[in-house]
């Protein structure tokens, strides 16, 4: 049982962010990398809301709005890029997308 403190929320947020970052580093599938990016964004929003709640301010809550909007736009454009990439190369694995290395 974890006491529900600001520290616990920030620790949870850090853990979520670390998991997302780990996923971005180790996974080879572009879609999963993208999901892990979303996880990192959500982790940051959790930290913002927690700070906002425990300090009695409103700014964190408002910024979560903007993060949500930017994340939605990012998902739309990113998935369109992935689809365009798949049409051209027939793969979405990052270890096969090595044109710039050759």
């Amino acid at each position, binding site marked *: 049982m974890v006491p529900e403190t600001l520290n616990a929320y920030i620790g949870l947020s850090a853990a979520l962010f670390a998991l997302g970052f780990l996923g971005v580093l180790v996974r080879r599938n572009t*879609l999963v990398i993208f999901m892990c990016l979303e996880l990192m964004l959500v982790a940051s929003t959790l930290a913002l*809301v927690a700070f906002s709640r*425990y300090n009695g301010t409103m700014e964190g809550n*408002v910024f979560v709005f903007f993060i949500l909007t930017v994340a939605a736009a990012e998902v739309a454009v990113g998935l369109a890029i992935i689809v365009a990439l798949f049409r051209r190369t027939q793969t979405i694995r990052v270890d096969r997308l090595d044109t710039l290395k050759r």
Partner: protein
Amino acid sequence: MGQFLFSVFACLTVVCAAGVVVCKNVVNAAMCLLLSLLGVAALFVRLDAFLLAFLLLLVYAGAVVALFLFIIMLLDTRGQQAPQARRGLTVAPRIAAAALVVAGLASLFVKGRLATPAVGTVPALGASLKLHAYLLFTTYLLPVEIISFLLLIAMLGVIVLSKREGEHSGYGN
């Protein structure tokens, strides 16, 4: 009761986030992402940010995960899931990664103590819809307008990206 709920949802969030990282199947990873987002929305409710919890469910769970699943089905990359010969890391990155993890954990245990204000005495401003609306239309009016332009640009970008090359008229075959 509060502690119990917090522990349950924190566990749900972290376990499902780990599931996103380790699941081999992309659809399972998307489902884990959905559950993880549900956990985060529940934590938002615990933090009295009801509107944000609702928006998180609506935007992420409703739109984003559905879009992910749609793209997964559309691309149908099942033939590419065969595990490849995994190239192991060399020694230097392993040492660097382990050192970073140790340094992070050490700094967490040495300095990671935030003073927790008594939550009962702090007003839950995030619960107030009126305050959200007031701030968005006064202090943060310019960012809201910029965000609307960002959405417009994203929409145009998606339309341009999803056109096939050498095709000039819409989505025809």
